[in-house]
Structures are given as structure tokens and as C-alpha cells.
């Protein structure tokens, strides 16, 4: 069974209020030196059978990410 990880991140030019909130909380915790925080999503997918890269791209681009505002990266675990 193949394991695939898809990371989805807001595009750099899109404001990330959640990341900003985390950064603000770190400052309140007394953590110094954090220049910025960006928050994203990680999907762990198990596939039956062989890896079909075209199908994975379809999954990521159609549902997992909104490519208007997000970038995605597909990683095959162990590869």
C-alpha cells in the first residue's frame, strides 16, 4: 500500500491571519526570534495499488487545494 503526503500552503502573496495569530501567541509565550509563521494543511493518503501521479495531481488540484489561493506539493512517502 502506497503512502502519499500532500502539503497545501496559502500562496505567499495571500494574507494568513491564522499564521499571524500563532506568531502573536509565540511572542506572548516569550519565544523570541520568530520572524513569521505560515499555517498550512497536510494530508496523508493511503492508496490501494500503484501510485498514479496524474490521479494524485487531480485529487490535489480539484479538492485538497484551492489553486486560486493555495499551492500544493505531493510527496510519495519513502521515495
Amino acid at each position, binding site marked *: 500500500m502506497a503512502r502519499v503526503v500532500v502539503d497545501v500552503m496559502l500562496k505567499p502573496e495571500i494574507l494568513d491571519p491564522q499564521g499571524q495569530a500563532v506568531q502573536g501567541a509565540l511572542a506572548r509565550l516569550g519565544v523570541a526570534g520568530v520572524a513569521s509563521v505560515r499555517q498550512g494543511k497536510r494530508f496523508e493518503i493511503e492508496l490501494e495499488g500503484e501510485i498514479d501521479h496524474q490521479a494524485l495531481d487531480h485529487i490535489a488540484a480539484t479538492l485538497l487545494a484551492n489553486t*486560486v489561493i493555495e499551492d500544493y506539493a505531493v510527496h510519495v512517502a519513502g521515495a
Partner: protein
Amino acid sequence: MTARIGVVTFPGSLDDRDAQRAVRVAGAEAVALWHGDADLRDVDAVVLPGGFSYGDYLRCGAIARFAPIMNEIIAAAGRGLPVLGICNGFQILCESHLLPGALIRNDVRRFVCRDQWLRIENARTAWTSQYDDGQEILVPLKNGEGGYVADDDTLDRLEGEGRVVARYLHDNPNGSYRDIAGITNEAGNVVGLMPHPEHAVESLTGPTTDGVGFFTSILADLVEA
């Protein structure tokens, strides 16, 4: 025969009943549509109401976009069916690519709930014909992810083609680019709006009755057609 206006209920829709009521206040027949049915029940127009469809899982509107009813709505919208998406409905329309851009978390990082002044920028759509260009209206606004974003080319095109339907006045509540509160597609039959005209149709419960114009507009549009 009166116009039949469908209101879709998704799991997690909140404002479907208010939208149905607004349809009736305007003088049309409200038809309940169910997300799981691939059936538009011969309606003349559709409202996608506010709420938190599918719990806003993944992204607001991202799961609803693939509901069986949405396949029908996307195809029918392409043939000219009037569709109004309010709040979560606007998010669903963007996720469906019926409208450009996307809606992201408010820049103020808080859910904002208040009465909001808007300026109607385009009174030529199927949903705004009963307003005047430049008319200022006051309707409720309530969203956590209402920040409208798109790339500069898209924003320039929307403005150049007069497709910004409504803009926030006085104070932008959520960081929407260029104060955009609502937009339309090229044909003018699909409109997405973040504030809630369906909550401003009766003086008992709304800050004004300014919102009823969206629903009388579609009625007028359908009677003419």
C-alpha cells in the same frame, strides 16, 4: 403563475429558512432544494444560503461544491439560470469557479457580526435591478471568512467590466480587496455577496428592509423573461 425560487439546504446551512422567507416577502414561491438531490425541481432561480456547509471542513464551500445539487446548478448557471450565493453561498460559488477569486479568513481574525453599509455598484444584474447604481443600503453582515481575494489582473478585470456588485462603505469589515462585498459573472446571472440581504426584509427583525431588493429584482427579471 408566480416565480419559483429554490433555496438549497446543505448539512450545516443556517440561513436557508430566512432566505425562503425573503423569497416569499418578495412575492415569489420558495422551493426547498436538498443538497443530496440532483434535481432542481423546475425552479426559475436558485439561492445558495449562508451557514457552515459540511462544517466548513477543508475550506468553506469546498465540500458543498461537489454535492449532487451543485452539479445541476453549475450546468444550469452556464445556461443562464440566475443564482445568488450569500455568505457561505458566495464561498461555494467561488469554490465552484462560477465566480473568480476566493474568500479567506477575516484580516481582523475575528468573526464579525454587525449591520453594514454597502454601496450597490452594479444595478444591472439579475439580482440587483431594483436598486439604483450607487444606492447605499444597510444589511446585516456576519462572517469569519469573508475576506475577498483575487490576483490584481482579476480585480482589474472585475472593476473594468463593472462586475463588482457591492462594496463595503465606511469601514471594510474583513480585509476584502478593494472593499469588495459582492461580484457577478460575465453574464450577470450569478451573483455572490458576503453580507446578508435576506436578514433585512422586515422591519421587525432587520435593521432595514433594504435587502428585499435582491429578491424583488429576481422576480422582476423572471416576469420580464
